[in-house]
């Protein structure tokens, strides 16, 4: 077991190094010259000499591997480079954005689990009842709704028609509700489906029949045994959604102006601010890979048969 984990960690490190290389390569190959973009956005007339001086200053003229080595070395020392847009260091910006994005992601995860765990279990227990059909229909539709659509609709009905929330989130608790809800709705749809399947599988196990014949109450079986056994898989189910959650948060943060890392990257894309975009890809990739790793290890720890 320990040996396996060590091997997986070694793999993880290789994947992360390759990720950093690919990210850098992507920015290197990207069309459009950041020096030119920067100069023209400052209103400077772009002559050949000015452009070359700016490229020199931004370090764009040195060979690829030198630049990659410097950038990667800097990352390891906590220096993620300076923004092409305003010459501020990238790392603190990314950290601040990441904090806000984490708040948003956790809020939406909590909302969707609160909704989907009871619904998933209830619809599995009362299979093919009216409740089950309604839950399945709702989770099917929830799954088919793109994030941006949900947020625009929520904005229209809750902010404009009913005037319940402020339209711009800007970091307040009240402003957190709508973006979190927009992320939570499609996720809750998927969670409910998976928890329903998981609970149904548990209910078909022999131990449930055993408990029933011994006269244990159905409620106790559900709470103490079925839920307990199924809950081990909840982390796996959540981990599977992390990628979608990351992509979704870019869209949602942009719409609601939530000051997270997703909004930061959209602003950076518009300004061709490569160091910030690279930092974003690297952070998201790392979190994704690490969470998948943890979920894998947990899965093995919780279920020694695998």
């Amino acid at each position, binding site marked *: 077991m320990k040996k396996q984990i060590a091997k997986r960690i070694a793999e993880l490190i290789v994947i992360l190094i390759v990720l950093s290389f690919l990210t850098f390569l*992507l*920015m290197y190959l990207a069309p459009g010259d950041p020096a030119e973009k920067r100069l023209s956005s400052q209103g400077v007339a772009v002559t050949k000499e000015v452009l070359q001086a700016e490229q020199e200053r931004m370090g764009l003229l040195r060979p690829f591997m030198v630049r990659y080595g410097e950038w990667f070395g800097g990352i390891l020392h906590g220096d993620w480079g300076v923004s092409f847009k305003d010459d501020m260091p990238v790392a603190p910006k990314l950290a601040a954005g990441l904090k806000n994005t984490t708040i948003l992601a956790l809020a939406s995860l909590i909302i969707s689990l609160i909704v989907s765990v009871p619904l998933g279990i209830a619809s599995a227990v009362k299979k093919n009842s009216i409740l089950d059909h309604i839950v399945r229909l709702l989770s099917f539709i929830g799954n088919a709704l*793109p994030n941006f659509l949900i947020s625009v609709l929520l904005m229209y009905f809750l902010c404009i028609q009913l005037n319940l929330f402020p339209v711009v989130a800007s970091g307040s608790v009240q402003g957190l509700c709508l973006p979190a809800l927009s992320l939570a709705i499609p996720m809750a749809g998927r969670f409910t489906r998976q928890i329903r399947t998981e609970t149904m599988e548990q209910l078909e196990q022999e131990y449930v029949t055993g408990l029933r014949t011994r006269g244990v109450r159905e409620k106790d079986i559900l709470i103490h045994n079925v839920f307990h056994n199924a809950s081990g898989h909840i982390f796996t189910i959540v981990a599977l959604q*992390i990628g979608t959650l990351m992509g979704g948060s870019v869209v949602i943060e942009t719409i609601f102006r939530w000051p997270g890392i997703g909004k930061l990257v959209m602003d950076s894309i518009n300004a061709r601010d490569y160091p910030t975009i690279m930092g974003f890809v690297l952070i998201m990739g790392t979190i994704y890979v690490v969470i998948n790793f943890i979920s894998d290890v947990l899965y093995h720890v919780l279920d020694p048969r695998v």
Partner: protein
Amino acid sequence: MKKKKAKLRKRVIIAVVFAAILVLIATFSGVLAPNDPYATNSELIRQAPSAAYLFGTDNLGRCVFSRVLIGARTTIASTFFLVAVSFLIGIVVGMLCGFYGGIVDDILMRIADLMLAFPQMVVAIAVAGILGGGLGGAMIALGITMWTSFARLARSHTLSIKNEPYITAARLQGKSGLQIMMTHIMPNILEPVLINALTQIGTTMIGISGLSFLGLGVVAPQAEWGSMISEARAYIQIAPWAVLFPAAATVITIVVFNYLGDAVMEYRNAE
């Protein structure tokens, strides 16, 4: 059991009919559109739905109904194209890897693993952003990770049949690897990979319209539902129809194709 099968078959037929209707609408949207979807009219800005403009008009006085119809073509055609290309690349790569094995298999599967190691939408946003928008860029951005699921599936199915007696027989007849793959392996692995393609349509549509919504997909003024919603949400208070109709079109289309994927998969699993 037979009864259940018949019920599932009915579901598949219903789903196919609805999907076919959508594809037909998209194909003939040019004929069906009552007005020119790109004609602006300063006297008809943000008109409420009426007989002449079924879904009203937008900020530039363009007919929302016609734009929704033309947008169906953009969304459905680009989704089908992207899924088809990923399918082709995936099935070729998967078959080659599974059939020949060896170092090529190792390298290609490592690349596929690597692609799966990153969140798809994050990669897509970064790549589309760097390529600087445009529908082509958005499709490349989504395709980078998409082909891998097809390749893995095709590979594992190839592996499971490549030692079957009929393949050995073909080999003994002196058929070349290419011939064996085309005449024996391909027809046998086609079905599961095609079903995978069906189930990917919904998510691909969400991806393309999501990127367009962010301004990383289609370029204005081309009509596409995501970008229409994005443009019109600025004045949603005054002209909600310019958002609600493309929104409804998006939801209906994704629901129909997801339903089709689910129905076909359940039907196959029941066998």
